[in-house]
């Protein structure tokens, strides 16, 4: 159970050489071994979505993934979003629309929609709500998050506000 394995994790373009037990969760490896604490753990049973990261560009629950499975895959976390000035269009829209309060759920939501908007540039409100239903937020009531996603999508399509 406690034998350790040396693995390489590729996160946000950086390579982390870490030594983990086979059972070590990706969420723990990211937060503790790689020092990337932006990925949050809200339930550890796959429901809340706070721990969502991108694995090869697709959203996945880091709390349901073992770190060892990730060799040879590209992981993107909240720390890897945003351009040189710090904010991606979605991050900017979240701030403009007041889409967060405590911010604990926020990384999972940003990561989820960064991927979603890339493939679905013009979602309806129902579609946004459907995707967002995979992320629990206890603070906001979701309305402003939906507005932020819409706004970011419009901006990314090059439409005026």
């Amino acid at each position, binding site marked *: 159970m406690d034998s350790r394995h040396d693995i390489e994790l590729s996160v946000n373009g950086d390579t982390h050489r870490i030594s983990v037990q086979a059972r*070590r969760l990706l969420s723990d490896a990211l937060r503790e071994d790689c*020092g990337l604490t932006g990925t949050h753990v809200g339930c550890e049973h796959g429901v809340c979505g706070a721990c969502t990261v991108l694995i090869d560009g697709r959203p996945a629950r880091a709390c349901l993934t073992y770190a060892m499975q990730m060799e040879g895959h590209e992981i993107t976390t909240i720390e890897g979003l945003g351009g040189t000035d710090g904010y991606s269009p979605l991050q900017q829209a979240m*701030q403009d629309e007041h889409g967060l309060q405590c911010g*604990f759920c926020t990384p999972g939501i940003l990561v989820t929609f960064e991927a979603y908007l890339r493939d679905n540039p013009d979602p309806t409100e129902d579609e946004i709500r*459907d995707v967002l239903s995979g992320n629990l937020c206890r603070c*906001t009531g979701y309305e402003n998050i939906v507005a932020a996603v819409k706004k970011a999508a419009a901006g990314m399509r090059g439409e005026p506000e």
Partner: protein
Amino acid sequence: MTVDSEDFTEIGKPLPRREDRRLLTGQGRFVDDIAIPGALHAVFVRSPHGHARIREIDTVEALELDGVVGVFTGKDLNAWTNPLRLAPPIEGLLPTKMTTLPEGKVRFHGDPVACVLAVDPYTAEDAAERVAVTYDTLEAVTDAAAALAPDAPRVDDDLESNLVSRQSFSAGAPAARRREAHAVVEAEFHQHRQTHAPMETRGCVAVWDEGRKHLTMHIGTQIPHPLRGQLAGRLGLSESQVTVVSPDIGGGFGQKIALYREELVIAALTRHLKRSVRWREDRLENLMAASHARENTCRTRASVDRSGRILGLEFEITEDFGAYCFYPANYMSRVVAMILTGPYRIRDYAYEVKVALTNKCGSGPMRAPMAITSWVMDGTIDAIARQLGLDPVEVRRVNMLSPADFPHTMPTGEVLEDISPAETFEAAVKAVDVSAIRRRQGATCDDGRLIGLGFCTVVESTTYGSHFYKSAGIAGSGHEAAWVRIEPSGAVNASVGLMGSGQGYETPLAQAVAEGLGVGTDDVRVHMGHTDIAPYGMGSRGSRGATAGGGTLYLCARKAQERVLTIAAAVLGLNSADTASLRLRDRRVQRRIDDAWQDTELTLRDVARTAYLDPTALPEGVPPGLDVAMTYDPPPMTYSNATHACIVAIETATGRVVIERYLVAEDCGTVLNPVVVRGQQQGAIAMGLSGALFEEVVYDASGQNMSATFADYLLATACELPNFEILHMNTPSRQTPAGIKGMAEGGVMGAIGAVTNAVNDALAPLGVVANRQPLSPQYIRGLIRSAENTKNPRRHGS
């Protein structure tokens, strides 16, 4: 204090929140993000039974595991810490005592019995599974009725019964009113057990400095100073030996107020072992063992005349408080009883409040501790309308306090002032177009949907002053403390005893300081959450942040401005009485000449330089430096008000409730920052709807918690909640600094009432009433089926 809110330049601006950048880029700092080298990890062993004697705790196998540092039980911890004694002098409240960990028996499923420390959390989990506890199970009491039965097993062996608190009150002659009444209308309201479920669970990191004999506790807490006092007291340390540091908090909603036993254990072990220890509970523990809330049953009896006017009201509330008292047991229910009559003109009123202990997780205040109040009151109005065949809008009008009634003294002695319930109600009525909905209800009998419209008018007690605590029989103070410091460079630091848990305090509180001082909001930083930096304040609970916290900061900043102007007058060679003709605006000292404000040559920076670096130039009696502190105790109670309107469609085949439209007209006085206020309104309504429709803590008859995952304890997702239309109204308080009234809990109160009243409006043609929550499809479908069976007893067998 006279304040014309029209003149505000900083208060009321929709500024974006300062917290956002760090939170949006993954740079937030929550407890679990704080790296402390060498810290041990704690995991708790918990009772699998609802009620049982602990026969033996065998730790041998656990200790054999590599990496385990120790396993500690009640015997150890209770020797190193003091118990929590709650014995406020409140009539009808039994004094209680709680040890740090139970030794004799466990009282609920999840009760902690031992703490395992190991070098990493995985090992600690493994070891916790190897701790063998032998129990003799006892009969559990799992609801208030069972707990109050004469021969019920006792939850707390030290008490003579499970009735831990009981108070009653009467004003006027409600019994006489009943005899005179045209009709007596009775109604029941069952609110189910819920839990706060902040997305960040509880946790802490404790660091002991043996050289200085000092404990530093990193913990997300809403009340840093009172928590420090509790920690020190329970550990036998002085308050000067404990520092509480609260980092970013991932939601609190009332759950992060009490000092929990687990946190105390971590602190005690840190000191005992002289090693840092950290703990972060998992979601199962959070749902099962952190804190629960809300479970109570209410009954009203309203004596009314022909028009539905309430002549007298009698109210009973019985609360299921769970197994342990982290708060005086009368705390929540008594407030419901005190403010129940809210926006309505009722003189003859009586209440009885009972609180029972049961074998469930202990209860505490959850966003709107008095959540059920408005549902009970407006639900009673709807019951009157149903029984008398009157229009519920008219019955509200007949009973509603009008502007001429204020100030209004409620039968309990509470004074309502500067609120506008009739105005919010009429605004909501107008906005929903009641007659259009009535027409729809008449027309849509056959599409398998029932349409309902519900109103709920809320009078929200936001900010408790010390006088209210005293009159409600709650131990505590309502004051808040702040300091404002203008540094030698003219930079402005400020601090207050509050601690936000996600609301976004940093910007609105900086706005309050900026307004009071006469600088821009960008010039001000407000520091919170560190007990060595912040002044001793009562922290964040209720909706006191804006009025108590913002108000104290605003007053303190005004005092700082006075000091600045006194110095400026001297430097400008003016008579010291001339400060009335000076003001600070945008960091410049301005002087009024012929009714126009003109810049002088002085800036805040110049004055600060004089204050710190050239004190001999200061006028007589003015001390060097620019450091101002003050405390402030708000009025006994500050109230905001709102009317919620909800339109639902019930699918008769499934019982599913769909919210078609949700609207609220809200008056919370002066708003520090409308962005933050709107977020609080949305969040509070969402929490109310989520609780009323989906969430439920479920125990089986033996006291097993059946709802300890997010697959069982259902929070509303984005698919179930609507957008909220918000109509702003603004009646500043004349009693509080800057006219601030506070808000953030009323949304819960209104939502619970409005959605249930809407459901009952929809069900009315069937002759059934939903008087319990959650309004789950099963429950609603059951009500519809019972109506169908009554109508066609033979056709529907099931």
